[in-house]
C-alpha cells in the first residue's frame, strides 16, 4: 500500500504529521497518502487505541469540510461512531457536519449520516434522528435504500424512546399490508414491528391477519434470500390460522422454499410448517418425507451449520411420539473427520432414532465408535449402547449386552469403567434376564477404578450375591481401601455391608458390617456418612439377635433391602417447554435445548396462540397416507380440485396454486376469473407431460 504499514498502532502525533505533510505535496499523491493516514485512525480505533485517537478530532473535522470523497466521509462517520459511543460529549461539535450530510442529495451519504445519528448515544443526536425519521416516514423518500435503512433503524431507536416509536407502529403495519409498497420495504417494516414486539414483554404479541399473511406469502418469489428468511421468521405465532383450509394453503405456498440453498430459508420454512402443524387435523405422509429429505440435503453444509441443524433435528425428534421426520440412520453415522461437537450430536440423534428395526445397524456403528481412538467418543458410544438397552425392549437389551460383554473382553481401561457403569442400569431394568452373565462381569472387579464404576460394581455384587458363591471375598477386596475411597463409594460400601447382613445374618456378616460401620463413625469426617452409619448401627441394635426367624431381621430387610422400582430413561421434554422450543427453532435456544425463560431471564416466552383449530392432543394426530385421505369426508368429488388438497398432490400442483390465486385475489381486489382458464389447460398439459 504505502511506505508505512496501515495495520499497526500509532500515536496521534504520528498520524497528524502524516496528514499535515501531504498538504504541502502535490495533489494526486497526496490524496492516497491522506487516505492511508485516515485508515490508520480506523485501524487504531479497532485496536482500542481510543485515547490517542480522540486527539485527532480537529483534523477529522477539517477533512470533513474540504473533502467530498465518499471514502473519506465514510471514515469520518466511522470515527464519529466509535468516538461517540466512548465519549458522547465530544461529538457535539461534529453534529452540524452529520446533519449537513443528512440533508445532502447523495443517498449513500444520507444513509451513512442516519446510521451515525442513531449510533451515537447522545441526546442531540437522538432527537435529530427522530426528527428525520418522522419526516421520512410521513413524506416518503424515493430512495428505497434510505427508507429501508430508516425502517430498520427504528428498532434501535426504540431503546431510546419506546413511547414515541409505539406511535409509529400503526404506520408500519399499514406499510406491511399495502401491496403497493416495494416488497423489501414491506419486509423491513414487518421485521421491525416483530423485533419491537419481541423486545417488550408487556406488549401484546404481534398479530397478523390471515389476508395480510397470504399477501406477504405471495411476495416470496420476489424476495432475496435474507428477506425470505426474515419473513418466515416473523410469521410463526404472529399469524393465527382459523380454518384447516388456510393452514394447508399456507403450507403449500411455503413448501417450495424447502429447496432453497440458503439454510436460513430452509430452517425458517421448516419452523413455519412445524408451527402450522399445530393447527391441522391430519399430517400427510408425503409432507413428512419432504421435511425429512430437505433436512438430509442440508447435512452437507459446513460444520457449524450442520451442528445447528442436528440440534434442531433432535428437537423435532423429541417433539412427538411419532416424529415428524423419518431418516435412514446411516446419514447420522459419525465420520472420522467430523469435529467432535458434530460427533456428539450425531450420537444423540442415533440414540433418538433407534428402534427395533434399525437397532442392529446402529449397534454395529456404536461398537465401532466404542473402539475409537478418541476416549471421549468411545465412552459416549458405550453410554449410548447402555441407554439404548434401557430405552428399548428386552430383545434389544440382549443384543446390547452381548456387544458390551464383547467390548469388555478388550479390557481397555476406560472402556471397562464405562461398561460396568452402564451395565448397572441395564440390570436394574431387567433384573432377571442376565443372571448368567453376572459371573463374567464380576471378574472385572479388580479393574474398576472410577467412583461411578466402583459403585456400579458394588451394586451388582450386592444385588446378585445369591448367585455368586465367592461374593464375600470379592466384597472384602473392594472394601480394603475404604478410607481412601471417595465419599460416594464409601456410602455404597456401607450400604452393601448392611444389606449383606440383613440378607444372611451370621456372625461373619455382622462382624464385617459392624467393622465398616465403626470405621465410618470413627475414622471418616463426613457428617452425612457418619449419620448414616449411626442410623444403621441403631437399626441393627434394635433388630436384635442373629437368626433368620427373628422378626427384627425381616423388618431390617425390608428397610435396607427393599424392592427397587423399575427405572426408565426420561428423554421426553415437558410439553410446555417443547412448545416454546419449537417456536424458537434455529435460534440460540435451540442449540441449548432449554427453554428461554429457564436459563435466560427477561425474555418473552413464546406460546402457541389460541385458535378454534389448535391441536390439543398431538398424539391423536395421525400421520396418514395419501390414499386414505384424498376423498376424506366426501368421496364423490373424485379427484376434483378441493381447497383442502393434500400435500401428496404435488405431482399435479397447478390446481392448487390456481386455487390459491383465486382465493387471494378474491380477498384483495375482485377476482379475475379469466386468468384461470388458460392455466387450466396448461395444467392438463403439464400433467400429461411434465416437460
Amino acid at each position, binding site marked *: 500500500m504505502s511506505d508505512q504499514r496501515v495495520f499497526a498502532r500509532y500515536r496521534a502525533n504520528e498520524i497528524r504529521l502524516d496528514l499535515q505533510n501531504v498538504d504541502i505535496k502535490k495533489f494526486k499523491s497526496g490524496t492516497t497518502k491522506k487516505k492511508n493516514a485516515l485508515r490508520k485512525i480506523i485501524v487504531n480505533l479497532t485496536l482500542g487505541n481510543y485515547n490517542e485517537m480522540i486527539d485527532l478530532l480537529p483534523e477529522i473535522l477539517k477533512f470533513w469540510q474540504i473533502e467530498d470523497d465518499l471514502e473519506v466521509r465514510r471514515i469520518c462517520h466511522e470515527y464519529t461512531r466509535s468516538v461517540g459511543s466512548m465519549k458522547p460529549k465530544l461529538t457535539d461539535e461534529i453534529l452540524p457536519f452529520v446533519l449537513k450530510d443528512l440533508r445532502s442529495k447523495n443517498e449513500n451519504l444520507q444513509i451513512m449520516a442516519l446510521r451515525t445519528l442513531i449510533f451515537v448515544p447522545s441526546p442531540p443526536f437522538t432527537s435529530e434522528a427522530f426528527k428525520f425519521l418522522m419526516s421520512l416516514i410521513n413524506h416518503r423518500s424515493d430512495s428505497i435504500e434510505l427508507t429501508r435503512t430508516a425502517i430498520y433503524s427504528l428498532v434501535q431507536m426504540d431503546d431510546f424512546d419506546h413511547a414515541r416509536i409505539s406511535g409509529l407502529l400503526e404506520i408500519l403495519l399499514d406499510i406491511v399490508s399495502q401491496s403497493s409498497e416495494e416488497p423489501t420495504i414491506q419486509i423491513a417494516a414487518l421485521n421491525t414491528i416483530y423485533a419491537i414486539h419481541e423486545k417488550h414483554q408487556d406488549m401484546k404479541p404481534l398479530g397478523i391477519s390471515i389476508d395480510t399473511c397470504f399477501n406477504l406469502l405471495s411476495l416470496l418469489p420476489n424476495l432475496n434470500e435474507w428477506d425470505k428468511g426474515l419473513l418466515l421468521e416473523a410469521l410463526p405465532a404472529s399469524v393465527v390460522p382459523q380454518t384447516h383450509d388456510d393452514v394447508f394453503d399456507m403450507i403449500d405456498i411455503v413448501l417450495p422454499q424447502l429447496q432453497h*440453498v*440458503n439454510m436460513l430459508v430452509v430452517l425458517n420454512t421448516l419452523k413455519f410448517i412445524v408451527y402450522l402443524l399445530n393447527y391441522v387435523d391430519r399430517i400427510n405422509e408425503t409432507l413428512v418425507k419432504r421435511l425429512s429429505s430437505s433436512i438430509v440435503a442440508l447435512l452437507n453444509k*459446513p460444520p457449524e451449520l450442520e451442528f445447528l441443524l442436528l440440534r434442531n433435528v433432535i428437537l423435532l425428534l423429541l417433539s412427538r411420539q411419532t416424529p415428524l421426520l423419518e431418516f435412514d440412520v446411516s446419514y447420522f453415522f459419525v465420520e472420522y473427520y467430523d469435529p467432535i461437537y458434530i460427533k456428539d450430536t450425531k450420537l444423540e440423534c442415533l440414540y433418538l432414532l433407534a428402534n427395533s428395526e434399525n437397532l442392529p445397524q446402529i449397534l454395529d456403528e456404536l461398537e465401532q465408535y466404542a473402539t475409537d481412538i478418541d476416549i471421549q467418543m468411545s465412552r459416549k458410544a458405550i453410554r449410548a449402547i447402555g441407554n439404548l438397552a434401557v430405552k428399548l425392549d428386552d430383545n434389544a437389551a440382549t443384543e446390547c449386552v452381548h456387544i458390551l460383554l464383547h467390548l469388555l473382553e478388550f479390557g481397555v481401561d476406560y472402556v471397562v469403567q464405562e461398561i460396568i457403569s452402564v451395565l448397572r442400569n441395564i440390570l436394574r431394568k431387567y433384573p432377571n434376564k442376565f443372571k448368567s452373565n453376572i459371573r463374567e462381569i464380576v471378574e472385572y472387579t479388580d479393574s474398576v477404578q472410577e467412583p461411578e464404576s466402583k459403585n456400579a460394581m458394588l451394586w451388582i455384587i450386592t444385588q446378585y450375591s445369591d448367585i455368586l458363591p465367592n461374593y464375600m471375598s470379592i466384597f472384602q477386596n473392594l472394601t480394603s481401601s475404604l478410607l481412601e475411597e471417595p465419599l460416594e463409594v464409601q456410602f455404597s460400601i456401607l450400604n452393601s455391608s448392611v444389606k449383606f447382613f440383613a440378607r444372611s445374618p451370621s456372625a461373619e456378616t455382622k462382624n464385617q458390617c459392624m467393622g465398616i460401620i465403626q470405621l465410618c463413625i470413627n475414622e471418616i469426617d463426613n457428617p452425612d456418612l457418619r449419620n448414616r452409619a449411626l442410623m444403621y448401627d441403631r437399626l441393627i441394635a434394635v433388630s436384635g439377635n442373629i437368626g433368620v426367624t427373628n422378626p427384627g431381621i425381616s423388618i431390617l430387610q425390608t428397610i435396607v433391602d427393599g424392592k427397587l422400582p423399575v427405572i426408565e430413561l426420561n428423554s421426553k421434554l415437558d410439553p410446555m417447554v417443547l412448545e416454546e422450543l419449537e417456536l424458537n427453532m434455529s435460534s440460540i435456544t435451540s442449540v441449548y435445548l432449554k427453554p428461554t425463560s429457564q436459563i435466560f431471564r427477561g425474555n418473552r416466552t413464546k406460546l402457541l396462540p389460541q385458535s378454534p383449530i389448535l391441536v390439543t392432543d398431538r398424539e391423536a394426530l395421525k400421520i396418514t397416507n395419501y390414499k386414505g385421505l384424498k376423498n376424506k369426508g366426501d368421496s364423490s368429488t373424485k379427484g376434483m380440485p378441493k381447497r383442502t388438497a393434500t400435500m401428496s398432490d404435488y405431482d399435479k400442483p397447478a390446481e392448487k396454486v390456481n386455487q390459491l390465486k383465486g382465493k387471494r385475489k378474491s380477498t384483495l381486489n375482485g377476482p379475475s376469473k379469466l386468468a384461470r382458464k388458460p392455466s387450466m389447460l396448461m395444467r392438463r398439459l403439464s400433467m400429461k407431460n411434465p416437460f
Partner: protein
Amino acid sequence: MASAIYFCDIKGRPLLSRKYRDDIPLTAIDKFASLLADLEEESSVIPPCLTYNNTQYLFIQHSDIYLVAITNLLRTNIAEVFAFLYKIIDVLGDYLKTVEEESIRDNYVIIYELLDELMDYGIPQITETKMLKQYITQKSFKLVKAAKKKQNAARPPSALTDSVSWRSEGIKYKKNEAFLDIVESINMLMTQKGQILRSEILGVVKIKSRLSGMPDLKLGINDKGIFSKQLTEDDTNNNATSKKQNKIELEDLKFHQCVRLSKFETEKIITFIPPDGDFELMNYRLSTSIKPLIWCDMNVQVHSNSRIEIHCRAKAQIKKKSTATNVEILIPVPEDADTPNFKYSHGSIKWVPEKSAILWKIRSFPGGKEYSMAAELCLPSTSSKSEEVQNKKPVQVKFQIPYFTTSGIQVRYLKINEPKLQYKSYPWVRYITQSGDDYTIRLI
C-alpha cells in the same frame, strides 16, 4: 440479528470489527480469546456457540481466522448468522482471492466498506458479489480493480432492490456464452472387504454465465436422469440396476435463489435469470446404493514389534471407454513405522511420514483394469500402545472421471432467451465425476 461482527486471529484476538447495534459492550470481544483458551484446556469439544455473561458468541473458522458474531438477543436466528458469516467468506473470497489473517490486514478498508453494505442493523442485506462490486467500485476503490478485472466499466448503477436483486441491468458481452458444469462427488464408506456401508452422490450444477441483458434461461434435464425417477447405469453395472430403487428423492434438490421455485414445484421446469459470472445453480443428492467406482481390497497385517504388511488391489469399475485420472489412495500406517519397502505394478508410491501414511498415485486408470501393490514397513521392537488403541484412520481414495456422471443425469437443453436483445448464444456442457470428501475404506 448480530450486534457486531469481528474478524479474529487464530488465538481469538480481534483484527477487525464492525458494530451494527449498540447493545453490547465494546469489551465483549476481549473475552472471546480467553473463552476459547479455557475450552481448549478443558476438552477438545469447542462448539460454535459460546455463552458468557448473557452475551452470545457465534463463530465459524476459516483458514487461520475466526469470524465471530456477537449478540445478546436469544431469539437471534443462528442459521441466519452462520449462513451470513459463510457468505462473508464467499464475498471476501471473490474480492481478495484468499481469506486469511494476512489478506485481511492488507485489505482492511475494503472489508470495512463491504461489511457496511452486507449488513444493516444486524440484518443481512445484499450479499451477491456481482451486485456489491458495482456498488463498491462506485466509490473508486482501487483494490477492487486489482482483485478482478472489471468487464463492464460503464455499467449504470441501479437500485439494489430490483425485482432481480442478484443481477444488474445493462450487462454486455460480445460473445454470449453459458458454461455448464455438472460435477458429481461420490462419498462412500466401505469396509476392508469391499462391503459398502454408506454411499451417496452429491451433484452440483455450476454455471458460468457470460450473457448480455436480462436473459431468461430454461434448463432441461434428461428424463432418464433425475426426473423420470429412473437411473441409467453404465454397462458394468447392469446387474445391479434391477435391484436399485428407482425412485430418486426429488426433494433433495437445492436451488440457487435465482431459480423460480414455485415454477419448479408446479411444472418441474427449471427456469431462472442467472447472476452474472460463476454461481452454483443447484445441487442434489442421491442416496442410492452405487457400486464403488474405484474398488479396493485391502489387507493389512500387523506383526507386532516387527513389521506391518499391506496389500491392496484396486480396480476401476467403470466403462472400458472411461478413464479415471489422478487416482490417489492414501493408506494410513502406524506413526512409528519406518523403512518402507514397496512393490507395485502401476503408478508411484511414496511414504508420507508427516501424515503417517503411504500414498499410491496412479495418474491414469482405465476402466476395467486392476492394479495392485504391496508394502512392508518395519515397526520398532518396543511397542508402547496396546493393540486396541491402534490407528483407526480410514484409507482415503481420491479420483476424477471426466465425461461421466454416475447418476446418469444429462442436460437435454439449455434455452437462453433474452426478450429484448434476441442474440445468439452458446451453451457449453461438461460432466465430471470425482471422489467426495469422504470416499473412505474403514480399516478394522
